């Protein structure tokens, strides 16, 4: 079992130039748990994660790991405790999977030192845990999006950190691969006790996989707690400015958000009917679905 580490933000203020993104935020990441940070676009959730990973230097306040401020500790020492998977890492052209995963060993290696026995073991373990052992000698360029994401996660595993921060690890993946990645993270948390903090767009997946959630709006922490406490229709209204109905997910029991939108509300006219009306309603629905898909793919491109 891994020892538990405490990661906390203390009156953290983050800014890009003049623009203040996060203002005086305090939070404590629950050790040994999966934490999801949710919020609307531009609410500062990725910025917060970047600060927790010491990529962004705080304007004021500090991030504290095991009681010591991050900036006061040697970079490599932190990198043996705190791992990060950013949103869009780049793979050098033509690099093979094993070598890329091996880069995760960087904080454990000295200048010019060769790979140790342990380096090999940890890389092999990471490849096995992510199910890409067979791809070890393949070039990363040849892989599909889902496989590539597993390679990056394998690299983070090879880093052997007790805390792992991930910025939207499921973006650009189809739903099957999203579940696969999140299952992998859940395994990691269960088997090794790794503390996981991730920014997730999909609220329902966040509610299902996280033990703890933080909801952000305009750089302020609106709520923090178990998903069943945090995800309510009132909170969704506050955080996303969206009307919704929250029900229990029939698969996992976690809260499930059903957004309403202008065209859908749980009023009687949308209830199942019979006779000539129902055919008409069905056509109407098909149109609505087509419209929804259009707007969904539009939003994604923009992102």
């Amino acid at each position: 079992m891994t020892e538990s580490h405490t990661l906390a933000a203390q009156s953290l203020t983050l800014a890009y130039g003049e623009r203040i993104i996060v203002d005086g935020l305090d939070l404590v990441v629950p050790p040994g748990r999966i934490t999801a940070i949710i919020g609307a676009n531009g609410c500062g959730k990725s910025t917060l994660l970047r600060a927790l990973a010491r990529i962004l230097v705080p304007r004021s306040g500090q991030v504290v790991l095991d009681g010591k401020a991050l900036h006061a500790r040697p970079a490599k020492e932190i990198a043996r405790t705190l791992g990060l998977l950013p949103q869009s890492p780049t793979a050098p052209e033509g690099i093979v999977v094993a070598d890329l995963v091996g880069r995760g060993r960087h904080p454990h290696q000295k200048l010019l030192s060769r790979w140790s026995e342990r380096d090999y073991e940890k890389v092999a373990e990471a490849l096995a845990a992510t199910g890409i052992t067979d791809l070890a000698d393949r070039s990363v360029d040849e892989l599909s999006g889902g496989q590539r994401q597993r390679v990056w996660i394998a690299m983070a595993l090879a880093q052997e950190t007790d805390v792992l921060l991930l910025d939207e690890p499921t973006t650009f993946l189809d739903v099957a691969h999203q579940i696969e990645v999140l299952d992998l993270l859940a395994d990691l948390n269960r088997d090794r006790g790794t503390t996981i903090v991730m920014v997730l767009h999909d609220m329902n997946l966040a509610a299902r996989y996280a033990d703890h959630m933080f909801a952000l709006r305009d750089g302020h922490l609106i709520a923090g707690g178990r998903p069943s406490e945090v995800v309510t229709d009132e909170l969704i209204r506050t955080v996303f400015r969206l009307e919704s109905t929250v029900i229990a997910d029939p698969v996992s029991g976690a809260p499930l958000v059903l957004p309403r939108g202008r065209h859908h509300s749980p009023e009687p006219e949308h209830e199942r009917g019979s006779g000539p009306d129902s055919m008409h309603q069905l056509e109407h629905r098909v149109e609505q679905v087509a419209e929804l898909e259009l707007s969904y793919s539009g939003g994604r491109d923009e992102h």
Partner: protein
Amino acid sequence: MTVMDAPPTSAPDVRDLVVGRRRRRRHRLVVTIVLAAAVVAVFAGTLMVGESFYGPVDVIKVIFGQTVPGASFTVGDLRLPRASLGLLAGFAFGIAGVTFQTMLRNPLASPDVIGISSGASAAAVFGIVVLSLDGPAVSLLALVGALVTAMAIYLLSDRGGFAGTRLILIGIGVAAMLESVVSYVLSKAASWDLQTAMRWLTGSLNGADWASVVPVAIACAVLVPVLLAQQRGLGAMRLGDDLATGLGVRVPRTRVLSLLAAVALLAIATAGAGPIAFVAFMSGPIAVRLVGPGASPLLPAGLVGSLLVMLSDLVGQFALDGRYPVGVITGVLGAPYLIFLLTRMNRSGGSL
């Protein structure tokens, strides 16, 4: 507990990994050794071959300070400084170029394409022609010119981040501007001959003497180790600055140290041999192709740079009718590659 207790599932994986990694390591090692041997061979060849041929025994005698009639002057005063300058300047260009290309994650971002060599060149030619400087003062002025140019390009492209197409396009513009400065200064100095002009326009080893070799040798001795010490950090930065920080690399420190060392090497080599066209630009990609993508390309790129300069100089001197400065030959090699990369950038939006 015995060895047999090791988990049977992971054991073969580790062995496969070791095999795969050893194979790639051995490949890199062999390529590097072959490159180094080729550099030594071409260097030796350069000393022996010319208008008159001198055997290895004569050459070695001259190197160790004995007087050999004829050879002492031809080899000791002409060929040895020329070959040394070619070797050292080529190495400096190669390693400085690949440092830029690695750090900016773009093969087009080499210092001779984005105007930093032109900055050094313009400062050096200004120092020589207008201020009548020589020796270390010229190297120093070239260094200042290169640093100022690098800063200017950085500030001009700041909004787009330090990487990216914007920086490259601005750099190409700055390079064109500075090259016209070089031409202007040369045209104002009527007493300057064509050879000197060629040296500052395309780079040349003609008239190389020990005074121009020594600063480059010192720069290589001091700065190449600095760059090699950064190569692990630079390797991690190829994955993106965020990820490198996550891996415990001090990104700002690595970036500043590598940039300063690379700019200084390039400037001092330029002060010695002129901006030998496209050597910094071509060496890195050739080295990467040779050693494979997982390895650090710094040392191989330096060796490729030395080879390019020495071979091109041999071709320029002896293979064609008429003598051409080395920069004309490397320019002929490099320009098509630049066009190839530019067309590729247009298609793929500038990423590697």
